[in-house]
């Protein structure tokens, strides 16, 4: 326990640990200090100055985000002087911000908009001076609009310190200081992995996904096209908050109904291919374990992680499962299996994926993911884009009558749905791999050791006939780096990985914390979305992927067996090595199975 100190917050005596900053104390005791650059998930950078408070014994105001409490401190959070300071600061920030609120993607979610409104800022007080910089539209996933950037630095912090991707930086100095990539080459020519955490933490609309809404509407309205939609596990638990429903409520059947109302020809579910991923990846793990492999199997669902691995750990590319992500498995099966069964020309099928993710836009465009003979996934919409379509389509989501998905490629188990939370893929895989190894069913299927928000989670699962199965889970790429370094070192020193099976998700919290998720979230909210998925898992009648009847059917009718030649052709992929400077492919790192 840290030492506590006596503090008077707006006259109220409280006793708090001396390690806390003033803003953390205020948040804990329900006093909202206006702020802009501070975010509870990120280390404070003290860039904006809006969170100033008066502190006894100091003639000048202090920034609450980076001032630790001290014994006897008397803090005033609201005074005439402070209100004037804050107002001037926000006026200065606004004078250098392109104010186009009605058409901005962050409208009503923008922290600057809310703050300016709350403080009663006079928009005409200062003249507007814009840099008139060109938007960075090089990336297929993310647009950077410098004219809306207020240089708060959250994106730089999350990119460098949380994700350790090292794409964004501050360039130049003084008034010219701005966020950029090295040599202003644009995000597509940087080590950016498209994780989109910068878009989630951006308080304004300066960072956002590259929208594919228009193309999707176009496809929906084209009578010649058969438009299929799939939705990632994390979507169903992230829609409720937009409509004032309780955070973490699973609204899967409302989601299906809304999608059908928007005009999609077939409403299916990525959770089905999440179960299929377990069969393919689980079989791969079991085969490696039986062969006594000294190298681990690492999950491959997260496209931000895959590009990160290709950039920073290509020497371990052979350890990453060859299984495609659930989204890409779905895409290829829609244009082969489903097309055959429904007798639809695959050239007329358009596959749309609704993902909590900006990196999925990059994944969909990978040239190697065309095993159907077409681009397997045509369009990717983030959760935010889907919500925009729901609003645009005039759908009363909260009150819409619940519907089921179509019968094809939509049945899913509890194992499939927990893919959306960190540790979920690991837990789902263990539930099935146990049976694949022992021929028996795992009884205690709630594997709580791999749940929760600890950065790197480790567990040992005793498996009869095999021994101890050592597993590790990392979420957030900074944590992935810690784990990968440990594995790399283990392999170099002892010739053996400390873990048999490893799950890595690029985003903190897993997909529920994805870069395409609704604005205004923090780790606590991500945790509640995750709890929603675990609740759905408990409520579902089938909770193990290998018991999914539709998964069994697709193997009987089409694929044969997990890792069969056809499964390897359609559902498995290979990886590249990329330059740490440009993010571009330099050579192929692994090969496709034959």
């Amino acid at each position, binding site marked *: 326990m840290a030492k506590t100190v006596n503090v008077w917050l707006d006259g109220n005596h409280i006793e708090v640990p001396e390690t806390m900053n003033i803003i953390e104390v205020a948040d804990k005791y329900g006093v909202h200090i206006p702020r802009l650059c501070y975010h509870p998930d990120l280390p404070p950078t003290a860039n904006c100055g809006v969170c100033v408070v008066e502190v006894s014994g100091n003639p000048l105001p202090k920034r609450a985000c980076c001032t630790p409490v001290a014994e006897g401190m008397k803090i005033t959070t609201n005074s005439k002087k402070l209100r004037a300071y804050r107002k001037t600061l926000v006026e200065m920030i606004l004078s250098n911000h392109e104010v186009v609120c009605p058409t901005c993607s962050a409208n009503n979610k923008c922290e600057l908009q809310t703050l300016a409104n709350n403080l009663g800022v006079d928009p005409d007080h200062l003249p507007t001076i814009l840099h008139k910089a060109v938007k960075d539209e090089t990336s297929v996933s993310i647009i950077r609009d410098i004219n809306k950037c207020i240089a708060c630095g959250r994106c730089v912090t999350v990119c*460098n310190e949380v994700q350790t991707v*090292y*794409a*964004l*930086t*501050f*360039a*130049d*100095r003084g008034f010219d200081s701005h966020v*950029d*990539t*090295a*040599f202003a080459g644009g995000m597509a020519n*940087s*080590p950016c992995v498209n994780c989109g955490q910068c878009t989630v933490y951006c308080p304004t609309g300066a960072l956002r996904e590259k929208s594919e809404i228009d193309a999707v509407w176009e496809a929906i309205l084209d009578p010649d096209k058969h438009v299929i939609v799939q939705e990632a596990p994390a979507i169903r638990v992230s829609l409720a908050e937009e409509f004032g429903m309780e955070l973490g409520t699973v609204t899967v059947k409302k989601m299906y109904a809304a999608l059908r109302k928007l005009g999609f020809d077939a409403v299916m579910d990525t959770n089905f291919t999440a179960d299929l991923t377990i069969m393919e990846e689980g079989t791969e793990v079991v085969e490696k374990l039986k062969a006594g492999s000294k190298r681990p199997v690492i999950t491959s669902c997260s496209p931000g992680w895959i590009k990160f691995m290709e950039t920073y750990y290509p020497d371990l590319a052979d350890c990453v499962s060859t299984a495609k992500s659930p989204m890409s498995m779905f895409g290829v099966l829609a244009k082969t299996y489903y097309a055959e069964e429904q007798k639809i020309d695959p050239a007329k099928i358009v596959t749309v994926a609704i993902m909590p993710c900006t990196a999925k836009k990059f994944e969909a465009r990978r040239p190697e993911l065309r095993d159907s003979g077409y681009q397997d996934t045509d369009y990717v919409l983030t959760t935010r884009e889907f919500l925009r379509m729901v609003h645009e389509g005039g759908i009363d989501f909260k009150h819409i009558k619940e519907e089921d998905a179509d019968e094809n490629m939509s049945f899913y188990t509890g194992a499939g749905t927990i893919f959306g939370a960190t540790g979920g893929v690991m837990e789902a895989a263990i539930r099935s791999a146990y049976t694949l190894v022992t021929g028996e069913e795992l009884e205690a299927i709630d594997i709580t050791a791999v749940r929760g928000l600890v950065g790197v989670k480790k567990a040992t699962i005793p498996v009869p006939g095999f021994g101890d199965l050592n597993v590790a889970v990392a979420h957030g790429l900074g944590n992935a780096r810690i784990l990968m370094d440990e594995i790399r070192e283990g392999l170099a020193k002892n010739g053996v990985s400390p873990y048999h099976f490893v799950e890595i998700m690029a985003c903190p919290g897993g997909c529920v914390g994805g870069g395409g998720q609704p604005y205004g979230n923090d780790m606590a909210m991500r945790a509640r979305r995750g709890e929603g998925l675990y609740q759905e898992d408990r409520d579902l009648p089938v909770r193990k992927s290998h018991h999914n009847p539709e998964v069994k059917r697709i193997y009987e009718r089409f694929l044969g067996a997990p890792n069969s030649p056809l499964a390897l052709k359609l559902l498995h992929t290979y990886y590249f090595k990329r330059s*740490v*400077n440009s993010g571009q492919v330099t050579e192929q790192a692994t090969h496709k199975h034959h």
Partner: protein
Amino acid sequence: MYQEIFSKYTPTKDNLIYILHDIQDSDPQHYISEEAVQAISEYLNLPANHIYGVITFYSMYSTTPRGKNIIRLCESPHCYIKGSENILRKMKNSLNVGVGETTKDGVFTLELCACLGVCGNAPVMMINDDVYGDLTEDKVDDILAKLREVK
């Protein structure tokens, strides 16, 4: 080509500034190229975006190729009061370049800088490592002509 410079410094990030200076000084075009940043990034195990941030923070470093002679005219208040604006106009006309630009023949690059600490001789400029004070428009042409003759 950078190895000789690297060999003088241990690979710790506090040596970044010195390495950047040496690389820029040894480059015939007085700048730090993308290739140089990649080499430094590998040597110091420091991400390229971080190095780019440092280079652009300091006005003494350039990421674009520059001329043989780098002119830095002081734009601080003392020199301004003593007519640095006229000197700048003269310089732009004589060289036919704007601020931050390099002459077509690659002989001069024109830059502005903050106080050089010789305010007693304002207006002042530095060309490479030499200070020129008490500038007048006539003096400027002489100085430039002399430097042009140097092979």
